[in-house]
């Protein structure tokens, strides 16, 4: 058990999921739910949020990769995640390049400084 690693989950558009599955992170079998969600045009925000929360609740997922434009849809859920594991990484998509200003982690790291802090 000590040697068993955790999974990398991905929530993204088809190209993103295909790419990462090509990389070998995918898990799909009859007993367990998949560790990826292909978000299409008709995928509801509720489904995305439910999947994200289910990934957070699983103890066997170490990192969650999510397209930033999808993360924007469930920003409140991502901002509410304060634990180190699983780590949430926002990644670009084909149509939406990565914007550091929107990244939850960077906003937490940078946004709280004020002039007084540097006295």
């Amino acid at each position, binding site marked *: 058990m000590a040697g*068993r*690693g*955790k*999974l*990398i989950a991905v929530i993204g558009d*088809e*190209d*993103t*999921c*295909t*790419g*990462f*599955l*090509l*990389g*070998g*992170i*995918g*898990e*799909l*079998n*009859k007993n367990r739910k*998949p*560790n990826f969600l*292909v978000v299409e045009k008709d995928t509801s925000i509720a489904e995305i949020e439910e999947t994200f929360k289910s990934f957070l609740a699983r103890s066997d997922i*170490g*990192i969650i*990769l999510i397209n930033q434009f999808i993360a924007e849809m469930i920003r409140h859920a991502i901002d509410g995640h304060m634990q*180190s*594991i699983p*780590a949430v*990484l926002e*990644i*670009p998509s*084909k149509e939406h*390049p*990565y914007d*550091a200003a929107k990244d939850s*982690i*960077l906003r*937490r*790291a*940078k946004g*709280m400084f004020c002039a007084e*802090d540097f006295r």
Partner: protein
Amino acid sequence: MGVSELEDSSRLLDEKLLLFMDQLALLEEKRATLNSLIEQGWFSMSKARYSMGNKHVSALQYASEIEPLVSVHARTLDNGEVDFCTERVKQKCSNEAGKDARLIEDIGPQEEGVRRRIKPKKDITEKDAREEASSEKVPEVTPVRKGDQNPQQDPLKWFGILVPQSLKQAQSSFKQVIELSAEIATLQTAVLNTRQELKHSMKDKHILQEEASAAQLDKEAD
């Protein structure tokens, strides 16, 4: 004593701030590399799609059973940071080749000649049975061995036996992205941890400053 404590606190704060800035700069650098590799992967996938066809590089090709070939180990350090590192499973290439060889050998009926059928024995002579066996297409021949998908197989094989080089390049790019993701996850926890330490150090410094100014006021009053 109070002044020296204040100076030490300020020095510590400066060191933490410099560390925080360095970590942010490194994070930004790794992010840029990650984004670039992902874009490279998409570009290679698009090239593969161009040569193979749209539907041949899509979610339709995913296997029905998949086992992960890479896992991530998360180790929590004493200072609260988490270290992520990836580990790739070595695929069993030689066994697969052996299985494939067996598959090739076993194609076709295992038994030659007469097969047993559950029929009334009286009406059928041996010759009739042989004729039936040779002419009919037997649906119940061998146990089906349609290239049973090995869940741990290389995902490239979902897209066909001969895949274009661009698809292999896409796979290579995404493999690098996965490794880099673990490094970025580690850096993120380090950045947030340093941010917390900065916050606490700042509070300590303010407390020391207040104590120092109160002590100064007392001296002046005396």
